[in-house]
């Protein structure tokens, strides 16, 4: 069995993730999840509140602002979020590995 190249693996996997977030998530269950259901049933859901830092969240509740259609708004939020966390985690890993590699470390020191 021949192994597929890493780059192809990454492209396929991220495409699957983007596809799920864009095209499937708008049709996901909108019932409350486990914790929220328990909070509703046991009467402490109203204790939950938004932190002041979240009042102006860019994409509150997975609904991309300015889009009327709820499903489209969620699909766009899924696209942006999936690519965003991909970039952040990839970038963090890249920096962490550079820090760990002795040659990269000396190169960084020399250039700074």
């Amino acid at each position, binding site marked *: 069995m021949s192994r597929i190249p890493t780059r192809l693996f*990454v492209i396929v996997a991220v495409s699957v993730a983007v596809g799920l977030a864009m095209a499937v998530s708008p049709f996901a269950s909108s019932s409350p999840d486990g914790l929220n259901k328990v909070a509703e049933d046991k009467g402490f859901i109203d204790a939950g509140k938004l932190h002041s830092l979240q009042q102006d969240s860019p994409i509150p509740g997975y609904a991309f602002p300015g889009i009327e259609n709820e499903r489209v708004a969620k699909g766009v939020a899924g696209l942006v979020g999936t690519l965003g966390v991909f970039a952040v985690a990839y970038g963090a890993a890249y920096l962490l590995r550079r820090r760990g590699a002795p040659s990269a470390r000396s190169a960084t020191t020399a250039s700074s």
Partner: protein
Amino acid sequence: MPDLPFAMHIPDGFLSGSIAAAAAVLAIAAVGYALKVADRDLDEDRVPLLGVLAAFIFAVQMLNFPVAGGTSGHLLGATLAAVLLGPWLACLVMAVVLTAQAFVFADGGITALGANVLNMGVLGALLAGFLLGGAMRMLPQTRGAFLGAVGAVAWLAVMIGATATSLELAASDTIPLDTALPAMLGVHALIGIGEAVITVAAVSAVLASRPDLVAMKVPDERAAGALRTREV
């Protein structure tokens, strides 16, 4: 709940300040250690894999599936990340996903972020790392046994997260433990089945395409060819 958007993780207000702070200390300690040892586990192929796992877990967490009684559940992902990346890199991935959800999507509180990272990320990832290593020493060295163990651990990781959440809610005087625990464990026993199915499917897909990207030691069936012949 006037101003809460459709939230899924622990929002602010459910936990007392001291419990939220205690959970945050534990989460920060785990993520800090993970950052310290990250370069040990990060070979060249795993750098993009961290991004892939974060993207996949974020996406699949948006896919709430219905479970009994007007309730839904979604993947947590810690077991999947731990199997593919090892437990410490898994903690980092979960921290990235949950932090983005809190700050960008208002999903999960800011003061509760430590508790969410602890319950849905750190505990599951470390449990998976610990239990899977032990399980594979005792189980037959086959891919089927490995995937079975992955599924069982994925289910258990959800139950551990639900237990931790119940303990934190009770210690915060939000709800008594004897009310919280049965309710949380009851619904998460079902959600955990979804977690197990998705985790096993995703690990199977990676084993089929790039088995070398699976960090947890997977039985090499070619080396154990005699064993496999006997099974057939």
